[in-house]
């Protein structure tokens, strides 16, 4: 059974080559899908050139206009659903923040504990080192941890992590419906509320090599409010059976 690594990318030409090189070192059984989110730089061309020489299958899908992280990642889930034959779908950032060595750990955790969603957490092992975001962001992350845990009873230490491995039950649903912007906490809450099995593994992350975060200092308040409202409203929805 193959696994698909989905890389959402927007103007990541500076970091992409290194990210793809690191992923090339993974064992067999992994395929890579780069979803180019309407980049205005050479991200798409770089990835296509890479796909010609890479020893593992690398696919490149270009969204015609910049649509945000949720739409980009969902395109990856739809790709997996249309092509079939994938067991796990892993979301992996293009900006060099994530460690490729964590991917087999996420898969192993999913297999061992029969998880539907496994999150790479920066906070599970406080002494693990690596980049753990700014103090203000950590405060926000703690707030989401508290909110999700109080509403669903599932405690996840890094609900905003973009390094996650989804099993078939989770990614098949994400292919049908996925939040458009700031999707991680919201989709995690959906999984928790619908009794999907969620786990975490400790990972190390690095500061992004190039580019800027999609959540600026001015957008942080909106982000907090929007995601909180989305989670609270999701709780009012009828639970999905047979997911």
């Amino acid at each position, binding site marked *: 059974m193959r696994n698909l690594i989905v890389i959402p990318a927007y103007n990541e030409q500076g970091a992409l080559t290194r990210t793809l090189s690191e992923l090339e070192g993974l064992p067999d059984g992994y395929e890579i899908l780069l979803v180019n989110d309407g980049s205005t730089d050479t991200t798409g061309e770089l990835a296509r050139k890479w796909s010609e020489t890479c020893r593992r299958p690398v696919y490149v899908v270009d969204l015609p*206009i910049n649509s945000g992280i949720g739409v980009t990642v969902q395109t990856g889930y739809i790709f997996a659903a249309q092509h079939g034959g994938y067991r796990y779908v892993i979301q992996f950032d293009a900006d060099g923040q994530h460690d490729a060595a964590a991917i087999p750990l996420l898969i192993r955790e999913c297999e061992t504990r029969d998880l539907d969603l496994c999150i790479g957490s920066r906070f599970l092992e406080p002494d693990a080192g690596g980049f753990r975001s700014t103090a203000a962001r950590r405060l926000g992350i703690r707030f989401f941890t508290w909110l999700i845990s109080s509403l669903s009873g599932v405690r996840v230490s890094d609900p905003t992590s973009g390094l996650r491995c989804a099993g078939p039950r989770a990614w098949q649903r994400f292919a049908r419906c996925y939040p458009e912007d700031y999707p991680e906490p919201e989709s995690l809450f959906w999984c928790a509320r619908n009794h999907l099995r969620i786990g975490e593994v400790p990972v190390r992350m690095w500061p992004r090599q190039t580019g800027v975060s999609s959540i600026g200092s001015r957008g942080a308040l909106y982000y907090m409010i929007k995601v909180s409202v989305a989670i609270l409203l999701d709780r009012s929805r009828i639970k999905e059976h047979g997911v």
Partner: protein
Amino acid sequence: MTAETLMLAGGVSAFFMTVYWVRKRDLREKYAVAWLAVATLLLLCGLFPHIIMCWAEAAHLSYPSAVLFIALGIIYPFAFSVSLSLTRQYRQNVRLMQCLALLEHRVRMLEQNNANAEGEKVSEAGSAGRS
């Protein structure tokens, strides 16, 4: 300018604006119906001011500020329906864009496979000719 003349002018302008945008196909008939109803209401109030007086008396509205509430009552459902419509359009656009991107990828793969098959055929024909 009296309030009656203002309403009359507003009604006529709203009427022509609606017709203009529908003719240009920038406004759907679905929304135009509601805007034409507002224009007609304004026109009627401008032409027959006693209607509004009777209505104000019946509703116990005797302050100009009450107009604000009436305006809000009209604006709110319109603005809300626009938000709903935009959301629906956005979701449809996203789905179409994703389909387009994935289809484009499939076409590119098919073209690449065809080109490879053609290349193989040519090289096979070449080696058969040499032997």
